[in-house]
């Protein structure tokens, strides 16, 4: 019972991160039709900046997270303007391959910036635990879920309630029509990248909080958000939240119970659970749980 509660909470914490990263993917996909393979690198850079603001400058955790997000938002906008804007009107997979190139570049830059020294994000959670129903829970897991959901809610409110959010949704719906209505479509692309990069940075900070430090190997965690958006549907924010939680919990439960009940699946099987779920989903619903079914016309 304690095991179950503990792994469920850990799963929800992980799921919160996946949801955050999933929303980051979805926002860019909706605006520009591109899957941003550079997200993992953006996440690591975000964690790096958060850590630097916390350690080198000595700012409190919350402030350094916000500053890290702001820096990444600017970097995201620059990337969009320099590398992605020229790709407007080109096939989506060419633009996606551009982001693969950016991923490689940023990964090296991040590795170099982090260097060999240990960099923590100076978070207040650490390895603190609280006891609930006899189960020992890490506060970081709860914090991850709460902060992720809050951040997604803020973005959701921004998209549905504000004028700019309306403009962004209009752009996602039909670029040419929005252009005709006086919306600066290019600026909306930049804004989408800014928001997405900021969310990736937040995910990076939350992922590094409560762990050993910032490393480039955490990039693989962000790639697990890809099964999340497949499960949720590429263009659905609601979908990526639900799918993120499903996949986080599934992964966590596998980590707890698979070594005991199905050891023949091998060590670290939980790492590939998201991909297996993704393949099953693609077989049954190729456009995900909440995605819009693509209408094909000749």
């Amino acid at each position: 019972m304690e095991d179950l509660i503990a792994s469920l909470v850990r799963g929800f914490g992980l799921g919160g991160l996946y949801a955050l990263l999933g929303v980051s993917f979805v926002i860019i996909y909706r605006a520009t039709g591109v899957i941003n393979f550079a997200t993992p690198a953006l996440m690591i850079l975000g964690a790096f900046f958060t850590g630097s603001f916390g350690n080198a400058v000595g700012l409190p955790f919350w402030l350094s997270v916000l500053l890290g997000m702001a820096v990444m938002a600017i970097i995201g906008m620059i990337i969009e303007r320099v590398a992605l804007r020229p790709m407007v009107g080109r096939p989506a997979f060419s633009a996606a391959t551009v982001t693969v190139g950016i991923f490689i570049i940023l990964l090296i830059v991040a590795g170099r910036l982090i260097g060999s020294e240990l960099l923590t994000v100076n978070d207040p959670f650490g390895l603190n635990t609280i006891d609930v129903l006899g189960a020992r829970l890490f506060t970081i897991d709860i914090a991850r879920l709460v902060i992720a959901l809050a951040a997604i809610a803020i973005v959701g409110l921004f998209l549905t309630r504000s004028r700019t959010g309306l403009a962004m949704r209009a752009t996602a719906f039909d670029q040419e029509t929005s252009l005709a209505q006086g919306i600066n479509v290019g600026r909306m692309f930049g804004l989408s990248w800014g928001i997405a990069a900021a969310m990736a940075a937040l995910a990076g900070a939350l992922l590094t909080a409560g762990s050993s430090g910032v490393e480039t190997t955490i990039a693989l965690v962000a790639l697990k958000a890809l099964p999340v958006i497949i499960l949720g549907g590429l263009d659905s924010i609601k979908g990526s939240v639900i799918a993120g939680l499903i996949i986080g919990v599934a992964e966590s439960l596998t980590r707890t119970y698979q070594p005991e009940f199905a050891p023949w699946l091998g060590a670290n099987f939980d790492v590939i659970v998201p991909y297996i779920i993704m393949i099953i989903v693609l077989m049954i619903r190729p456009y995900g749980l909440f995605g819009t079914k693509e209408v094909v016309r000749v």
Partner: protein
Amino acid sequence: MTTATKESRKTVRGRPQLFTSYAREMSIFNTRVKRNWAIVGILALGILPFLLQRDMVALLTTVLIYAIGGIGLNLLTGYAGQVSLGQAFFMGLGAYTAAVLGGESKGDVIGLGWDMAIWLPLAGLVPAVIALVLAPLAARVRGLYLAILTLGLVFIGEHIFKEAKPITGGAGVGRAPADPVFLGFDLFSNQTILGYRIDRFTIFYFATLVIFLVLAFAARNFVRSRFGRNFAAVRDRDVAAEVMGVSLLRTKTLAFAVSSFYAGISGALLSIVIGRISPETWNIFLSIDFLAVVFIGGLATITGSIMGAVFVVLLPKLVNWITGFIPGAGGIGDGGLLNVFELQTIIFGLLIVLFLILEPRGLYGLWLRLRNYFKAWPFSF
């Protein structure tokens, strides 16, 4: 062949673009210049290893192997329009098929020690069959969904490779690759042929060269066949292709199978060059390498894939060489701002981005521009 067709297949001197028959136009070398350059190129590839140092010969072998894999991915991505990040997985399958069939048994690791004449075709066929099984799933999804699906394949594959210890040796340990003994002749040991001592790198280079030439010409031939046209139709507009009677499922399945065949052969040969293969070799970054071969070389051109392979494999050497010449590059060398490996990787990423933005047709496109400039000289059109 009758005299009439023989006549019509000849090119008219001085007017290489005047084709008097479709067979002539569609032939692999449809102009005399192309044929002559191809002969020169093949001759150069034959002479090069005798002029170069040993490590360069090994590097040249890697170029050929990357070209094989690149051609395979280009058939799938460039011709059939299916973006795949799964190349590394199929290469791994090929490498392990070869290693199990052609390698030696050692400890818990299985190796049957068969001849290369058996394991080489099977190293291509086994990945092709696996691709056939997976293709119906891949054919359900389009575009970027497929890229993500194949990405998942690489991760799942890596896990399986790590766990299948009798086949792969397990994570971090690895195993020895297949022995390239072709019909009793060891292709990876020093030999004396007609009184000349030839070192093993050169021998293996020539073996790879032969395989490469066969596969490259086969690919060239394949894309001008009915299937190649089906590929292009599916790439350009899949719905329209289906309406015209091209079966999407069949075409995509075929594209996956052929591409995986090439990937398997390339993986098997690459494992021999590497010398010892661990499951971590077949990761997402290898897939990105091959994506770079295709995109930098140019989509939907076999020649381009070869150029791309030359470029991607020789880039590290090139970067090394250039930083050695720049006097102010001290900040770039080891211990400076970036080490050579980091610099290479960054340049690599930058080139992918720059080529896609500035010249989507890749190196082949650059060559076309250059050729057309001189063809029309002194006019600009």
